[in-house]
């Protein structure tokens, strides 16, 4: 069962993630992102970026690593085999670029129990090595109750 008392819990930071050019290119290819600033260094630099620019949803990679702390939290009691992704939001304070080393930390922002289960919102704060906030990733999951399973 979901434990609503876990709302507001902040988990320890995830291991830092190093953004590589190849990870940006591979992700851009996977999401069919054709903007040259994801693929070509000269194109990124012509726009004033010092390296390749990650696609707007690239931060999901980093966020999911942080969210693993919630998945592995027995006290939260969330059955992730019964989860449907409901909403996602990325807020970028500055774009993620190749060469960045980013740390991330997840908070179990909100647990709203409903008849059919619960809506669970996590917020991942992504920051640079100097501690500056870079991106915020908000993810809302619909968790179905066990007794509602077919």
């Amino acid at each position: 069962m979901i434990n609503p008392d876990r709302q507001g819990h902040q988990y320890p930071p995830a291991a830092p993630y190093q953004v590589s050019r190849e990870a940006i290119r591979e992700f851009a290819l996977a999401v069919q992102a054709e903007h040259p600033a994801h693929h070509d260094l000269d194109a990124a630099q012509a726009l004033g970026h010092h390296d390749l620019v990650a696609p707007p949803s690239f931060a999901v990679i980093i966020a999911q690593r942080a969210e693993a702390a919630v998945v592995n939290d027995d006290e939260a009691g969330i059955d992730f085999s019964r989860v449907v992704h409901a909403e996602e939001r990325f807020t970028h304070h500055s774009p993620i670029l190749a060469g960045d080393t980013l740390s991330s930390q997840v908070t179990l922002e909100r647990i709203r129990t409903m008849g059919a289960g619960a809506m669970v919102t996590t917020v991942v704060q992504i920051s640079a090595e100097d501690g500056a906030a870079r991106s915020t990733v908000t993810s809302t999951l619909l968790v179905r109750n066990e007794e509602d399973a077919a």
Partner: protein
Amino acid sequence: MSTPVFEDLQKGQQIGTRELSFSRADLIRYAAASGDHNPIHWNDRFAREVGLDGVIAHGMLTMGSAVDLVSVWAGDPGAVVDYQSRFTKPVPVPDAASGSPETATARLQISGKIGAVDAQQRRVRVDLSVELLTEAATEAGPDQQSHQEPVRTKVLAKSQALVQF
């Protein structure tokens, strides 16, 4: 395409459209690139066991693919300072009947229009429409099928990107 001039932008203007298609191979590529290896995105048996009709695309693949229209229009993907979506309907990606798993089996149409202009912050909100196109079931013969309009299903809602100028 030239970069849009902020002063010329108005609510209601269209920024363009793009058609995307997904194959089973595209789902595998996204799983590898994103680290999301949930088997509902590559294994039909598993997908059916959890109540789906079969393999579906990652919601994040649909969301992530739709925004390139905005990046290209804005001229700089780094100008997309905020991007959100709600996942309303799954995108089924059936196995191709024969041949290569690179054969596209799901077709999406993305279109964007300006939903709001914030002159003070020099930001524009682009509202994206993301629709799954499926062939209408028809009793007509094969030569009439090509004239049939596809059925459109909205798969993302409140899909909004904020662009900083």
